[in-house]
């Protein structure tokens, strides 16, 4: 639809106008008395809440602490899943026997809504950080492993044979031929897995936590503090966007050749 593409400046201007209009509507709804103030805080009140929480914290916890705790849990569970999932998926792709032995387990775990087994993890590990990290690990692992396995299937067989005949050892073939060829597919999996882990960590914090951004939103909803809830939603949305951009940047650096000739 090239003929319908707008110039970047026009497009940005329209986006800015649209966001400004939405903010205006929000401010109007919140302050005109159409909606009760405890149901919908105005943008100005949300800013005040941000200032207040940055200064005094929220119910004994600081905002940076809650944000760091949520991101920390998410990245720890996701990181462990990356470390375990990529080799696992490569192994499953390279060794048909390993694929046959582990495939069913991975394929059973993948479509299972993570919060459903959170109940079991809480029974097993208690409500502390252990059960949350295990939950996020199990959320991300099957997605990453499946993506790595699918990536191996895309490696041109000729390339492996060429490397072999040039005398590359098995580890060298995996490291220098298979992994780079599978990387675009692995990154697709990483993006999906990180988004899933981020959604899941917030859900887990709503279910059982004493800190974190999810807990902050839950606690605020009990006290009908819609300003704090909206602030939490804004921070979570921006963090989610930042996480996905960070991964996209990493992908562009690491797989800079993808999509070229």
């Amino acid at each position, binding site marked *: 639809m090239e003929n319908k593409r707008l110039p970047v400046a026009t497009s940005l201007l329209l986006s800015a106008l649209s966001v400004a209009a939405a903010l205006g509507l929000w401010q109007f709804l919140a302050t005109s008395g159409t909606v009760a103030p405890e149901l919908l805080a105005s943008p100005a009140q949300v800013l005040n809440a941000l200032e207040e929480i940055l200064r005094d914290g929220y119910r004994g916890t600081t905002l940076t602490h809650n944000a760091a705790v949520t991101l920390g849990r998410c990245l720890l569970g996701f990181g462990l899943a990356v470390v375990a999932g990529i080799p696992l998926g490569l192994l499953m792709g390279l060794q048909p026997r390993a694929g046959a032995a582990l495939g069913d387990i991975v394929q059973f775990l993948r479509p299972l809504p993570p919060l459903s*087994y959170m109940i079991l993890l809480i029974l097993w590990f208690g409500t502390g950080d252990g059960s949350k990290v295990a939950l996020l690990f199990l959320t991300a692992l099957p997605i990453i492993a499946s993506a790595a396995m699918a990536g191996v299937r895309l490696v041109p067989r000729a390339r492996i044979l060429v490397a072999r005949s040039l005398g590359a050892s098995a580890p060298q073939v995996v490291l220098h031929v298979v992994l780079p060829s599978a990387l675009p597919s692995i990154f697709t999996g990483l993006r999906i897995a990180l988004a899933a882990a981020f959604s899941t960590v917030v859900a887990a914090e709503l279910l059982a936590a004493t800190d974190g951004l999810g807990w902050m939103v839950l606690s605020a909803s009990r006290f*009908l503090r819609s300003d704090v809830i909206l602030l939490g939603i804004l921070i*979570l949305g921006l963090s989610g966007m930042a996480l996905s951009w960070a991964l996209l940047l990493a992908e562009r650096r690491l797989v800079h050749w993808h999509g070229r000739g």
Partner: protein
Amino acid sequence: MDAAEPARLWRWRAGSVAVLAAAWVGATASGLVPSVFLPSPGDLWDAAADMVTEGYKDRPLLDHIGLSLLRVFTGFGAGALLGTALGLLMGWRGWIDALFAPFIEFLRPLPQLAYLLLLIIWLGIGEAPKIVLLFLAALPVAAVAARDGVRRTSLARLAAARTLGASEWQLFRHVVLPSALPDILIGARLALGIVYGTLIAAEIIAGSTGLGWMIVDAGRYLRSDQVFVGVLIIGLMGVALDRLLVLAERRIVHWAGR
């Protein structure tokens, strides 16, 4: 890279399942793992039989399944339809994209459960907040898929149809829509998975009926046998929902991938 014959691979498949089953029986029968943590196969069977015949907490099991499914289909249906329509427009006209993209891009990576509480405050604790939650979960996923699908329409095909005198509507109906359909259905599949996971999470956090509520309630009474049965049902339903969309995909875009 050793090319084991596919016929022999089933042994590895069956072997791994057998090892898991043996470990399960061994751990529970020996008393190594208390049944509160891991019910034995017998316990699981009894709990499943009991839940099928007696239902769970005054409600037949099928009611819980039906309620969860109804929520999924209503929320997903509304979100996917509107999201697809919006995405098609966003792909077709740049200015529509510019107007809606900021909200879609914000909503898409936002953890769905974050706004559940706000919806509960606004709409009460009935069905409405759950349906709206699922609607909002499906909308951005469907919209982005449809938009990208439209953008992938081959320019040569568009030019050819234009040269042959097709009107804007005909171009949209006969060139753009069929090209975007495979992407739309991939988006629908992704959205359905997200909607299902979100619903189970919502029922766990703030439900009084449905499959998610069932397992969280059983967990409160440390009935891990019932939790296990519930998790199995949730898993199987998830797979069934996904299969359903794959079947639809094969029928609707039978030409894709050829």
